[in-house]
């Protein structure tokens, strides 16, 4: 009797997981396997693909300094974006976490509301704000503060601005969840022992919310490093990020083998970041932000 119960208990998680596993295998693992295979094919000068095991794409991707430089600048932009999100998102999350429960729902709703609009549209909206004939320039010129409109778009800052705009909610939600999990009486205890409210924040609240900050940071970093839409819409010719190279290779040049190698390279680098993160922080906090303990 007992053994059948046990057998059922070990079987059950697999039964429950199977729809998700099937989806992951069909939609992620198998396409990924195709990409791996593709990356060893070769595109001939004539434009056809040669099936086989060639290392040419990999050699190009790994040795050409053009790719290396763009990879490094992609990581730099992702890092700056992450730091900006942390600095802007933390106070915002703190404010929401400390609001009255009625306002809290409203504020969280406002945070999630932009997700109802396409990411591309949200990104393009900056053109109406920062463009040469956009809202900001029109205002500055009409009010006489400027003689000529400023070129605010199509540079690295405008790409970072777009990324921060896109990623800030991820940071805020992660930090918010970790702040919500901190027992309020801890700060009261610190205060009663002699801390000012700022000291008790530094001693108690900040360290206990670091896992949320780290989780938000990881999400922002990985999503920023993998994006191609923001640099495409808001960046200039020199602001391409690594995913733009993949896009360029596959969509524009139709060079699937090279695009595959490049995308695997990005996947590997980001996988490394996640691994290092997991080693030092653990993935538990991210699961928490999505509602699991």
């Amino acid at each position, binding site marked *: 009797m007992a053994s059948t119960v046990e057998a059922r208990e070990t079987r059950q998680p697999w039964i429950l997981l199977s729809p998700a596993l099937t989806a992951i295998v069909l939609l992620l693992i198998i396409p990924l396997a195709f990409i791996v295979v593709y990356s060893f094919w070769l595109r001939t000068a004539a434009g056809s693909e040669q099936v086989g095991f060639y290392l040419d794409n990999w050699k190009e991707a790994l040795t050409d300094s053009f790719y290396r430089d763009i990879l490094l600048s992609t990581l730099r932009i992702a890092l700056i974006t992450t730091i900006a999100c942390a600095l802007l998102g933390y106070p915002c999350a703190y404010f929401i976490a400390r609001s009255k429960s009625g306002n809290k729902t409203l504020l969280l709703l406002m945070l999630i509301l932009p997700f109802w609009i396409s990411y591309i549209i949200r990104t393009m909206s900056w053109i109406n704000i920062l463009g040469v004939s956009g809202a900001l320039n029109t205002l500055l010129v009409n009010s006489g503060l400027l003689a000529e409109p400023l070129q605010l778009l199509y540079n690295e800052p405008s790409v970072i601005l777009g990324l921060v705009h896109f990623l800030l909610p991820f940071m805020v939600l992660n930090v918010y969840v970790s702040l919500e999990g901190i027992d309020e*009486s801890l700060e009261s205890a610190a205060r*009663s022992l002699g801390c000012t409210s700022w000291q008790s924040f530094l001693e108690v609240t900040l*360290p206990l919310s670091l896992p949320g900050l780290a989780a938000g940071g990881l999400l922002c970093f990985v999503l920023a490093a993998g994006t191609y839409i923001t640099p495409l819409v808001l960046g200039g010719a020199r602001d391409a990020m690594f995913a733009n190279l993949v896009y360029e290779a596959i969509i524009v040049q139709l060079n699937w083998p090279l695009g595959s190698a490049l995308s695997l390279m990005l996947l590997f680098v980001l996988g490394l970041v996640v691994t290092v993160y997991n080693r030092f922080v653990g993935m538990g906090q991210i699961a928490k932000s999505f509602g699991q303990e």
Partner: protein
Amino acid sequence: MTTPAVELVDIVKRFGAITALQPMSLTLPEGSFVTLLGPSGCGKTTTLRMVAGLLDPSAGEIRIKGKRVNETPIHKRNLGLVFQNYALFPHKTVYDNVAFGLRYRDIERSQIKKLVNEALDLVQLPSLGDRYPKQLSGGQQQRIALARAIVIKPDVLLLDEPLSALDANLREDMRVELKRIQHQLGITTLFVTHDQSEALAMSDTIVVMSAGNVEQVGAPEEVYNTPSSEFVARFLGASNIIESRTLSVDGEHAMVEARDFGNVPVPIERVRNAITGRESKLVIRAEFLTLNKTDKTPADGVLSVNGQVETVDYQGQAVRYFVRVGDRQLQAINMIDGHPFAEGETVSIHVRPRDCALLPGAIT
């Protein structure tokens, strides 16, 4: 006369339209152990948090050591605070938790070490300094929380239901322990609980509260024996409250005519506001009603009434009986000697008049 450690003068707390605390005044003499006792929502925590500085009173004055502290922020009040959920810092070791308050005072490192070790000795956990709170049992966490609060030598120790998260046995041990430490340090303590036995066992003074009002302030035996209201009588232990009419009052007794029991001479020190001819309430604690076989004649002066046992509730050494007398049920808690009575049995209920107390007014 020395200045009291804490004085509350007509403090009021309103949350919007709700008044959580009606004007309340209370004095905690230096070194005393005062307990706020009352049912959930009566304003105990609110009162404690105002003393702590976590809440501002809407009106009234709070004085600590004779000085008004209404405007003093919490971190300058020098208080020890212990919470129901311990509130230990999970990211700090036991040692760092206890040392926390000392680091915010001008104390040398070596001195901090000595004080922390002394505090850990005092709570009898000298060897746990390196552990994290998560690695401790509930009882150990509670002791560390206490050590953290007392190591700073606070002017007042504030405890909000510190024992209620512990299981029953541990709770009784900690009760003794807490009282020992409090006594040893001679520290003025304001303790909050809704557990009457905790309050009776530990306090010098009990403040019984109900719905934002103070019902009675007094020593445990005073509050227990001479409740000032029906609420207090019912809240502290099981009481029977019987309608009566005051017949006469003299220097020694108030003679009342109580339903079923007849004429009862209640000793005057246990009588509140008896007015001849008016309605009153006779309070008899369940422990003072004894059940007897019907053929046993009561001793001289002892009142008796017959009843039928309806429910028998074993409680270890004692039994709680619910006995039907006329159209009402009385509670009696008796020690077990020999055979307890069975359900359905007819018994003779005895009570000595000197074990009764008298309250004014009709039963509510």
